[in-house]
């Protein structure tokens, strides 16, 4: 459990990448806390595009560069800084970082941001079931979706695309790419698709490669861990 006096940070998967919100507290403490947090979750988070929300904190160019460096060392790319103060935004622009996000979902006035900063929660105690990311589009090769909660795709997941989710993954379409469900260690996570023919499936710490099978007519299937192994079964409605 995290005591109230601990410096607050929140790490959250959003559509545009990974939103890291720095709460109130001494800046150096917050950074140390962030560094620790990122180190423990490194395998899950690495490769993400980071959006750093600094609130009304005044940060100079050098300080932003240090954060950028620290993130880069952990395989994360800083691409946007959301700041209330114009001087912080100027510093970010000098580093060629974005200072607002496209679309309304997470812009400066956005709700997503507000819920993320609510002071009393940290990522560890937040149950993944609280969040769900819904994308109504086809994920093509090269697309990566990282999200802490559940992910629902209305569309196909093509080979070369990947979804890494803390919770369950449902694909209302053909799943032919890579999906990692329960990526934070949840062995009860499931992966469902109308046509489950992935390149690879991962649930928690298990990895499965689908068997080479002759072409078949697709049926909806559900993959889950049973006796320590990932298995796929026809997706049936229980009566």
């Amino acid at each position: 459990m995290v005591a109230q006096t601990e410096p607050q940070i929140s790490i959250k998967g959003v559509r545009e990448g990974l939103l890291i919100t720095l709460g109130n507290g001494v800046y150096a403490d917050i950074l140390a806390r962030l560094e620790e947090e990122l180190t423990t979750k490194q395998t899950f988070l690495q490769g993400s595009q980071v959006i750093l929300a600094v609130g009304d904190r005044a940060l100079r160019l050098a300080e932003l560069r240090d954060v950028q460096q620290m993130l880069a060392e952990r395989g994360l790319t800083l691409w946007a800084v959301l700041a209330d103060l114009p001087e912080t935004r100027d510093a970010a622009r000098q580093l060629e970082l974005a200072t607002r996000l496209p679309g309304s979902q997470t812009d400066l006035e956005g709700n997503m941001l507000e819920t993320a900063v609510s002071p009393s929660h940290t990522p560890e105690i937040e149950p993944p079931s609280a969040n769900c990311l819904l994308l109504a589009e086809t994920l093509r090769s090269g697309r990566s979706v990282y999200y802490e909660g559940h992910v629902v795709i209305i569309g196909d997941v093509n080979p070369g695309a990947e979804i890494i989710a803390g919770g369950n993954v449902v694909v209302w379409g053909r799943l032919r790419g890579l999906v990692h469900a329960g990526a934070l260690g949840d062995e009860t996570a499931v992966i469902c698709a109308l046509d489950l023919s992935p390149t690879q499936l991962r649930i928690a710490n298990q990895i499965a490669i689908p068997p080479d099978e002759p072409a078949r007519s697709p049926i909806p299937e559900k993959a889950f861990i049973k006796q320590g192994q990932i298995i796929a079964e026809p997706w049936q409605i229980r009566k």
Partner: protein
Amino acid sequence: MSGKVITITSGKGGVGKTTVTANLASALAMMGKKVVAIDADIGLRNLDVIMGLENRIVYDLVDVVEGRCRLRQAMIKDKRLPELYLIPAAQTRDKTAVSPSDMIVVCDQLRQEMDYIVIDSPAGIERGFRNAVAPADQVIIVTNPEVSAVRDADRIVGLIEAEEKGPAKLLINRLKPGLVARGEMLSVEDVLDILMIDLIGVIPEDESILIAGNQGMPVVLSSANGTSAGQAFRNVAQRLEGQDVPFLDLTPKSGLLNRLSSWLNKQS
């Protein structure tokens, strides 16, 4: 009158972007359009060779962008078609010599006097690709019926969507109908099943393309006018003009050669 900018790209190398560019530009010019082909593969130029214009190069795209010559001076007139021009790439520089906004400026100038500006994109998804796509009104993605080429094409479709360049069109190059019939090559349907974008043409594998390329003469112009690849390219050009041209029947029933020759007889 404002010309249309068409960018030919693929992601993967070696699928035939340059051949497609040369043939499409030539086919459009044969229809009486004013066409300029631009080689955006700076540092690895090829389009001039395929079009047989290598020895006429004086100025190139980088010279235009850096102000060493006027645009008109870098436009090489084709040997055979009066309304076809080429702006070659520089061989001694790299992709960073040109920026996406440079390409937009050059193309906006060309639009005023040309009907079509056809850009040959380099392979990859980096600067050279972004240069080629920045000014595009229409993107044509070239792929081969191979799993790796389709994978890269899928990535490109995603990137084009992200750039809001409108729906890209697909051109499947080097299809071998015999292999498809035996189930040893991806079919047109297999490719479309993954990519799910509009098809603008299917070019069959044809030796005459290689021969014509080595001779510096796009196959649509070569004297053996009956080649199926040449016809397929002319059809793509007509589709770009908005005509509804049926796709060539490439299914071998009583042997591919018979099939094609009977089809050719029907045409003439």
